[in-house]
């Protein structure tokens, strides 16, 4: 097999799995069977190809449309993981909602293929193709609970605003293409470094800026976040986890690759990148936390939480522009997204378990006193909350610690201090949930224990253990992300 084919193997494998799932949907009756098949095909085809390629150190073909370096493979691995977890959680969730359609799993896998495309694209066209493959699947997935008004509304809202932001992104791409006469990342970089910009700098800067707006939207950074709380709240909970974790990680992956391979070529663009990400990141952390404080609904609170986390990721992405910090910051961001995956999927999984069939979100009231009625679930949820808040001995603490550590090392004390203050505000609303779990308000009866299947509990245990294990022994993950870069 030629290297060119090898390089597209993970994406192709996931695409193939998606096609298989859609074909099988014609004959399969049971959503459960489809789910198990979906998980198996993702793990075997997707996970297998990632492992095989990783063991060979990745495959990079010059001038190909995608790059399959170890950085891309790291992200591919995360996507396989999150997709499998989400599918496994869907088994119980959609059964409970009586909307277990067999097509669900095909779309999840297709979205995963899109994420992989976004993470490994080295060309504006493949970048856009990956982004839209992912987004279109998300639009469908968000509306999967057809009987629930909120789900359909979330789907439509996401679609319209997504299209709106894609317009910015496409216009940005067009200007970038016009300025450099190339769609290939390498080609644009060459044009930038040689100064061969036909349309002049203003158009280049405008293109760069509009392109970033598209990214900000996908990362749900404030003020481009408006869709996120509504969509995350209305969408089926496992799908919310997929969007919040997979979608954002993919957008971050795309941002990392295009920055490292294109925008480092121009000092002016790198500086703008730094300032834009830092400013938007800090605004996101502060405003997001302040709004989150007032939330009473868990999914909405988690939506704001994911917005704030995107803010921390943005600080890391911005710091990539500092050449002396680049290696350390990249490792920190990769650690952060992996940490974010474990704890956030876990948190959404608990939200899915507690959610009653007729509701699409629950208030804190449904969680109050779970510490006595469902102690194990409550203990796990506390672990996820503490980790999201960034309490030591959890993986969330280390994620923040590495990002701030890099910022401090680079001498960006003000950014680091502001970020830390934001993190302190954020602690409040996570602890509010923990307090509700263990100390129900006076005169309140503890909420009844929700039902959870043993598979869900096993997955939750796995993620809780991962959150703690990686928080105590981060060596496994730090070794993995050390020295990763674009090939």
């Amino acid at each position, binding site marked *: 097999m030629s290297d060119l084919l090898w390089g597209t193997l993970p994406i192709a494998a996931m695409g193939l799995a998606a096609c298989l799932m859609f074909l099988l949907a014609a004959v399969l009756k049971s959503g459960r069977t489809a789910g198990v098949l979906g998980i198996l095909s993702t793990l075997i085809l997707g996970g297998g190809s990632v492992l095989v390629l990783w063991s060979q150190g990745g495959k990079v073909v010059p001038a190909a449309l995608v790059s399959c370096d170890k950085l891309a493979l790291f992200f591919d691995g995360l996507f396989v993981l999150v997709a499998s977890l989400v599918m496994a959680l869907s088994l119980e969730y959609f059964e409970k909602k009586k909307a277990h359609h067999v097509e669900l799993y095909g779309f999840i896998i297709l979205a995963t293929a899109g994420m992989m495309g976004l993470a490994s694209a080295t060309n504006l066209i493949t970048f856009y193709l990956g982004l839209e493959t992912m987004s279109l699947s998300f639009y469908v997935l968000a509306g999967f609970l057809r009987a629930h008004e909120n789900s359909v509304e979330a789907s*439509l*809202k996401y679609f*319209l*605003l997504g299209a*709106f*932001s894609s317009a*910015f992104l496409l216009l940005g791409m067009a200007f970038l293409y016009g300025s450099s006469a190339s769609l290939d990342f390498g080609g644009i970089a060459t044009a930038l470094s040689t100064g061969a910009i036909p349309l002049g700098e*203003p158009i280049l*800067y*405008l293109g760069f*800026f*509009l392109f970033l*707006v598209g990214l900000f*939207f996908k990362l749900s950074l404030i*003020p*481009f976040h*408006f*869709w996120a709380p509504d969509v995350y709240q209305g969408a089926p909970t496992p799908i919310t986890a997929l969007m919040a974790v997979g979608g954002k990680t993919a957008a971050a992956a795309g941002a990392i690759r295009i920055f490292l391979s294109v925008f480092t070529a121009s000092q002016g663009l790198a500086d*703008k990148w730094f*300032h*834009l990400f830092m*400013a*938007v990141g800090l605004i996101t952390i502060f405003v997001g936390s*302040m*709004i989150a*404080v*007032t939330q009473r609904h868990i999914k909405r609170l988690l939506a704001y939480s994911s917005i704030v986390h995107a803010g921390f990721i943005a600080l890391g992405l911005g710091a990539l522009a500092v050449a002396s910090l680049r290696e*350390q910051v990249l490792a920190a961001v990769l650690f952060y997204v992996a940490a974010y995956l474990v704890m956030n999927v876990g948190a959404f999984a608990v939200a899915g378990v507690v959610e009653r069939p007729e509701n699409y979100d629950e208030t804190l009231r449904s969680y109050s006193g779970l510490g*006595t009625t469902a*102690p*194990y679930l409550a*203990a796990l949820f506390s672990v996820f909350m503490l980790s999201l808040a960034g309490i*030591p*001995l959890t993986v969330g603490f*280390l994620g923040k*610690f590495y990002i701030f*550590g890099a910022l401090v*090392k680079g001498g960006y004390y003000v950014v680091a201090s502001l970020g830390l203050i934001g993190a302190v505000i954020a602690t409040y609303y996570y602890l509010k949930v923990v307090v509700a779990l263990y100390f129900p308000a006076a005169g309140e009866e503890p909420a009844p224990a929700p039902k959870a299947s043993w598979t869900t509990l096993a997955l939750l245990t796995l993620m809780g253990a991962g959150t703690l294990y990686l928080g*105590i*022994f*981060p*060596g496994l993950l*730090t070794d993995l992300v050390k020295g990763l870069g674009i090939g």
Partner: protein
Amino acid sequence: MIPVSLLWLIPVLPLLGAFVNGVFGWKWEKDRRNVISGVALSSTALSMVLAFWNIATLWATNWGSVPERVGNVTVDAAHHAFALHLAPWLPVGDFLTGLGGRGHFNVEWLFVLDPLSAVMLFVVTFVGFLIHVYSVGYMAHDQGYFRYFAYLNLFMAMMLTLVLGGNYLVMFIGWEGVGLCSYLLIGFYYTKDSCADAGKKAFLTNRIGDMGFAAGLMLILYYFGTLDMAQVNAIAVGGTIPPWVITASAILLFVGATGKSAQMPLYVWLPDAMAGPTPVSALIHAATMVTSGVYLVARSNGLFSMSPTALTVVAGVGCFTALFAASIGLVQNDIKKVLAYSTVSQLGYMFLGVGVGAYAAGVFHLYTHAFFKALLFLGSGAVIHAMSGEQDIRKMGQLFQKIPQTYRTFLIGCIAIAGIPLFSGFFSKDEILWKALTSGDGPGKFGPLYSKVLFLVGASAALMTAFYMFRLLYVTFFNSDRVSEEAKHHLHENPRVMTVPLWILAVGAIICGYVGLPKLWTGSENVWERWLEPTLYLPGGHGEMAEGAHQAAASGAEALVHHSAGLEWGAMGLSVLVAVLGIVWATLWYKRETETPSRLAQALSGPYKVLLNKYFVDEIYFGAFIRPFVTMSRIASGVDRWLVDGTVNVVAYSNEVLGMLLRFFQTGYIRNYGLFILLGVLVLLYFYF
């Protein structure tokens, strides 16, 4: 080497026990309490067995022929230390230190087994296990059985982390962890306000100390470039660090120690901490947690030895606390309060020991104290249990016939703490007093006057100790019978699950001192000192001295000036004399009911009231710190309510207003979002282009 690589399991096993009981215990609370105690006891017992295996390995190691590294265990033969490098934790990287050198901020999960941590390991696991056993009986009728054992196991896990931690940060996890457990257990009967308040008091007082500790760690990291304790000690004695840094970091660490180990001026929480269940008082507030400050100083001995100023402070604070707390103990009427002040006073002795540079002697007293004080506390618990919860000794008397087992073991504890020869307390207390007397030319460079003052104050505290302990014994078990009819009805000897641990500890309180017989008696070197000697870091670096000189220097002042055997016999005679004097005095006044104490209290009503009210320290603190602080908090809370909450409310309210506005345009919802995004784009564009 096998046991050393399993060192991490020693804290993890009780942690697992805490997890199981904490999560599933509520199911067994009602009718399967033996499952709860089974989980708690077996995890602690396994941890103890593993600890003993490790200590035996340490004992049997031939340091001349150990490899430098086996797997992830490194060996430091000069200091008889095994270090288990379990995994990295905070690998941050290199930085520029305050002295312009290269610092390494790479914190790992480092567990160290050396003679010093072995002593603590033995005390914590052995006494801890006995107290677990005792608790099965003591807590049998209490609500929250699973909660109690989950906390107790969590405490063991944290305490063992503190003990085994090879760098300050791992130790700090344990340090904060035991503080949390102490808070939870003091406030165990949280429905009683006094208990909840006592828990808060302990937690807040400890925060002050912990702030000192944390500041000390930052200073050490910045100037020493590492938090590894062995490295910090080695760098400190290497002489490259400016003296003020050493003094400042040592004193900051000591501030942390005064909080945790209840020394002046932060001792106030410990007497109140007696609100917790009595086995907790025995384990946490007598035998283990409160001694961790002493352990911290002994662990950082290289640092402290290099700073005469810090040692002067440590010895002075310890000595003064010993006398001060003992004087309060003279007149208290609550059986546990007397023991609490006694603990504060004995901890003062330990600090006196480490403060005069006699680290081995200080740790020796820590070790013997763990036995007799745990014994006394458990004994007091047995009395309280038998008396259906009564704690006031004025309502007891003549109990020796009713609860003979408890009486006999309590008597042994009293003799041991009073310092009667051949009981453990004598050896350690005498060692400390002797080292204090001869400390004039020790590492603290105290001079003849200060060392004599330390000795005399220490001896007076010993007199008081003997007096108040026997006063307690007589008033409780002899004197006149003042037990109420109600209590008499229920009065019974305790079940075996409680008396057996008492007897084991009593035997320990008699014999545990024999590992440290003074050289004066045996003619050969003190076994205890020889065991701990490799853990000491001496000025000028460890390996650089000739073996003989090194050995001599290790035994403290003796190396520099030879003190006559006559002087040592004299000092020993004096400490025996004060102990006997104290006991005789208590016998005359309290064995039978006499008028003397109350007449004296009337005659000297002023001083008596001052002592009875504990020098009014709580009241002074309340006026000087707490009231101003509360006023400040009120103001801050006002600011919070108006400004912060106001802001939050405005944000929330504006959201609602926005929400209401948007509700008008049912389909305009998304258009609004689009508009905001467009606005965002324009604003960013305006600022950047």
